[in-house]
């Protein structure tokens, strides 16, 4: 579905991504992991068009999307969330999602249709669809849900979820994991998931890609990857514990 090959991103003299290649298959949940600064979020930024890549190719459903603007990539069916939630604080929760539903699809949805879809999506993630509710009322967990709802409202085929669990407590975390499963299962949306909390991620994903210093060091099933000596080394000798 998505084929990234030779993706390179340089910030001045610093190489954040150095020829990263991996593939996302239709219908899977792919975990993208790696130590801090290994280039996970940069990869997301390049795929979603938020940052221009330095070199390499990104093909989505047979079409080259590298070099397109973020809105064009969104229209083609790739949605993303942000690691640190970036809600539109002046808009209500409903409007936040409705604006995504209105502008984010391949065709522009009518306003009434966009609001209807926004309500559905809010219901799915478990947020109030009350037109007066403001994102200012939401805590860390709620903001993460809003990120997901806004991304989902654009009607994506591929969801790039950046640390959807960060800052959540235990109950919220299992709720979020359940949500990601439902997004894939019920909506049929393929997911690439970046996460720090390894144990949880490894239980959910079908396959993992491991980045270190901007390079792909392993790709495969969670169990195999966790045993890979290069991965163990990248994580400073700690073995990834699969609870």
């Amino acid at each position, binding site marked *: 579905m998505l084929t990234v090959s030779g993706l390179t991103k340089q910030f001045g003299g610093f190489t954040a991504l150095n020829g990263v290649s991996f593939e996302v298959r239709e219908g899977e949940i792919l975990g993208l992991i790696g130590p801090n600064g290994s280039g996970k979020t940069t990869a997301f930024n390049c795929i979603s068009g938020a940052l221009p890549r330095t070199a390499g190719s990104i093909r989505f459903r047979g079409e080259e999307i590298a070099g397109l*603007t973020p*809105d064009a990539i*969104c229209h083609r069916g790739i949605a*993303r969330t942000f690691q640190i939630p*970036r809600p*539109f604080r002046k808009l209500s929760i409903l409007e936040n999602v409705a604006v995504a539903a*209105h502008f984010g699809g391949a065709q522009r949805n009518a306003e009434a249709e966009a609001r209807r879809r926004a309500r559905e999506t809010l219901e799915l993630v478990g947020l109030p669809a009350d037109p007066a509710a403001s994102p200012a009322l939401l805590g860390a967990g709620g903001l993460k849900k809003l990120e997901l709802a806004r991304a989902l409202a654009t009607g994506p085929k591929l969801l790039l979820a950046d640390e959807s669990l960060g800052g959540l407590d235990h109950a919220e975390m299992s709720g979020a994991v359940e949500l990601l499963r439902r997004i894939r299962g019920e909506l049929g949306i393929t997911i690439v998931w970046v996460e720090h909390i390894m144990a949880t991620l490894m239980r959910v994903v079908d396959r993992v890609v491991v980045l270190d210093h901007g390079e792909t060091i392993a790709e495969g099933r969670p169990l195999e990857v966790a045993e890979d000596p290069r991965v163990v080394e990248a994580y400073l000798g700690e073995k990834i514990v699969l609870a």
Partner: protein
Amino acid sequence: MTPGRALGLALAALLAAGPFLPLGGMKEYGLHVMVQIFIWSFIGGAWSLMGRFRLVSLGHGAFLGLGAYATTLLWNSWGLTPWLGGVLAVLLTAVVAVIVAYPCSRFQVVGHYFALVTLAVGEVVRLLIIAERNWTGGSLGVSLRPAGRDSLVAMQFADKRVFYYAAFVLWLLGLWVWARVDRSMARSAMEAIGEDETAAASVGIHITRFKIGITVLSASLTAVGGVAYAQYISYVNPDTLAGIGVSLRIVFAVVLGGMYSLLGATVGTALTIALGEYLRIVFGLRFIGMAETIYGLLLIVFIIFLPSGIYGSLRDLVQRLRSAPARAEA
């Protein structure tokens, strides 16, 4: 009918009957002040279409001047009716707006930098008008060639009431456009862009298209205001219709009244014009610059203490008072 709506209708009826109210010797003066308030409120409303989305332009004088000068010069040189001249002037202004907005959006010139760019644009237009004095009249300005009699084609009338009603309709038109934008999805998109361009783009909003769109709309309406003002005063001058001075006066009026509410620009403009007239009468020629000093002080006070302006803050207060008893009952 809500009390607010009833009040609004009563006010509109009063304004519509304005020229026929018995005002005695003050009538002409009263009409003159009202025409000014209508036209400058319209222009302020046009400015706030951008300002409310954090596209703070300090150069709307450029668009005002282009509208006023293009129409006036077309009439004076070729006798082209201001109706047609106005359309050409607005088109010209729209083109200039695209030339300003496109690179600003493309290279993410936002916030203070955007304000500075527009400030420069306003001055460039003013200096160009002064420099091209052979056909613009330079810093002395230029008078509208009189048609000799009342003429719809020339948009010239001896009777102030004609201008009063024209300006009134223009003002209503401005409010209508503002309300339309306020209720549209485009407003949500612009709010999103104003807050976080990266996040807005990630949900499929075409940033450049929206920024250019709102800039062109705001600039075109401002140019229309320029045309109206030039026709009414029948004299154009680079210092009153372009450059920093007038640009800042527009901004000040809107900030004073409140840029996030429908009537904010009108309240602010009415207050600044009233203040200006009052100071002019009190101080006369004794303290030149006094009005500007007081404007400046008020502006600082308002930006710090009442960021949503007089009207906006009052409206918020009324809403809070109204919802408080409702909550107490629940």
